[in-house]
């Protein structure tokens, strides 16, 4: 099962923390969460993957879709604190080469 913790920082940055297995069943929920944030005016989003034990390509696709939505609204989507097993999935698709994961949530939008 998967749970999404969603909060907004003082700087107005949305933080989404999926806890558990982020797979094809959860992918749509993730995408809807991200779209909902952007539509609500939160255009800068950090997806905190520290509590995400597993991630498949469908979930990765949902992240990309969320990124597109955020970019088109003038914002951005960053990912932070992926575990080693999650990074493997990024590597399999070469996403690790174009998308840099951040070491912590707070500074994800600093650079």
């Amino acid at each position, binding site marked *: 099962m998967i749970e999404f913790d969603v909060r907004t920082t003082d700087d107005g940055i949305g933080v989404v923390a999926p806890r558990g297995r982020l797979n094809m069943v959860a992918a749509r929920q993730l995408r809807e969460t991200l779209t909902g944030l952007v539509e609500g005016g939160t255009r800068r989003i950090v997806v905190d993957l520290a509590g995400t034990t597993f991630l498949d390509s469908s979930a990765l*696709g949902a992240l*990309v879709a969320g990124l597109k939505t955020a970019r*088109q609204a003038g914002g951005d989507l960053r990912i932070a604190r992926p575990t080693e097993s999650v990074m493997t999935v990024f590597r399999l698709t070469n996403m690790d080469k*174009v998308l840099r994961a951040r070491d912590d949530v707070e500074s994800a939008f600093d650079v």
Partner: protein
Amino acid sequence: MSDARRFFVRVVALVTAILGINYVAWRWLFSVNWDAWWIAVPLVLAETYSLVDSLLFGMTVWRLKGRGEPPVPARDLTVDVFIATYNEPLDLVLDTARAAQRIAYPHRTWILDDGNRAELRARAEAEGIGWITRSADWADMPRHAKAGNLNNALSVTEGEFLLILDADMVPSPEILDRTLGYFEDERMGLVQTPQYFVNVPDHDPLGSQAPLFYGPIQEGKDGWNAAFFCGSNAVIRREALMQLGVARYAGEVEVGVHRALRTARSVIRKARKDLDADQVQVLGALEEIDYAIARARRDLDRGEALFDVTYRFQKRVATTRRELVDADLRTLNEDLAIIAGLDRVADDPDVSLATIDETALLQLADREWSPLGAVETVEALVRSIDVDRGGEAQPVMPMATISVTEDMATCMRLHGLGWRTAYHDEILAKGLAPEDLQTMLTQRLRWAQGTMQVMFRENPLVQKGLTLAQRLMYFATMWTYLSGFAALVYIAAPITYLTLGVLPVQALSTDFFVRLVPFLLVNQLLFFVVADGRPTWRGQQYSLALFPVWIRSFTSAFGNVFLGRSLDFAVTPKEKRAPTGHRWDLVKPQLVAMGLLVLALVAGAVRLALGEASPFGTVFNMVWVVFDLVVFSVIISAVRYRGFEPDTAPDSDLDASPPETASARPSDEGAA
């Protein structure tokens, strides 16, 4: 697959290869009649083409894989069944959907309705069948035909596996139980089953069935881990498709941004030149964009992540845009102040510009409204230095969109990522083939064009990630579609001899025949043993007789890929056409060819009677002409074919509306 049969096939394939290479080498080295090079060279090239075709066929069947009984699947897999439709009759789609609902293995059935038909939706949902049409994201975006339809559905469903069916492909209840077991292998990405058509008489006048392809050829490709995806009747692992989609996305945005950065300098320079010198502010903005591009390039060179670099770039350009608008607004306000100072204007309510809504002015800050928007080339450039794929409905497109036939390219890319595929040789879905010549020709042209597009855009011979054998297996299918050019030569050569007495070979000597005849015989023997009782002659006929279609597919795909021309792509019509009499006009090139062949027979006879030609050469070429005519005779029966009439009393379903649709591979069927 018995070992004895596989061994026998290999022996015959090996002998065919040896005799073929021996013959063609001898042709090139010792027997080309260089004096008549204009026909001699084309002929030896055509023969070389046929030899390569034969070698690739031999390689294909070298590893004939008979998978036999499939493994039993686990019971807890989740499956979506997709029925792709665009404009097929509703009853046809619903019949397929109902059969899909009856598939025994637990699953969900979806109709992917690219026609967005309210009635189909209502009727499907009344029967508990899911209905999906394109989301709002697709408005004003490239639709990518069936590939787009499937990509759209992938984003709103969540099963681990997908069974893809064309609208007319009625599945049997055990289709999933017979295919899902292969996915026990966790690297298995796709399982293809045959495409079989119920509305085809035994003599198959339109060459609809592809018994050699959906059989030994796919089994052979399977042996090299290169079984093809054929668009319908296949089960796919969602993870494989999605991984492909994301990997393509990552690769393509990277390539796209780098390409944009490379051309950036010249785009800016040209835009600057086209501007009037008094547009100082826009010129200044271009300067800033130029600088932002230089920084982006430098950051990428330093190894910074593409997503960060493009984000910063977009932010900088946004700032530039805002400054431009601010400057414009300042100018406007100054103007307004001047206007307001003029008493007579201030009294005139029509010119009270100062009351303009502030928010309306702020709209100018949007992309389209900003003064920079006028410099379209630069705006396009800026947009392309981003990773959001703004020109597509979805950033991730798992089904390949580079070709009008999405299946081959998608499958090749899956293989490139290291996924395995399987071909399960058991008919588990039955569909409807075209019943008239025109529909059939449109369909074959479309397939051939799709294959040629892939050959030009992503040539398998140079694709990373594929084994050498996989590259050759994909290339083999493309190669068969080049047969149109060889067919022209095989028509022209005997005509040339019988009418002009010009022989493209140096002599019709014993040397010639002892090399050619054994090769031809053993090549046919190879077909015979590989086919194992399946009919192959129809396929061999069409591979020559449809030469105008194959040639047109090559030229139109070439024009499309390299010259940006339209393919004149038409969706295969699914409705039965009103009877319009025999359409001889559709096969004019073939009729002309047949006419010339017949005339050549007459000319040859006359020349023989006058003693101007050698009896042996004349008879040999006459036999060749008669063979050509027999091959082409299939065209006559195709034109005269009036549609399928079942032998037995037709079942009411089919009789009520016999629509037409299509699916099967024409290629590979005639590798001779």
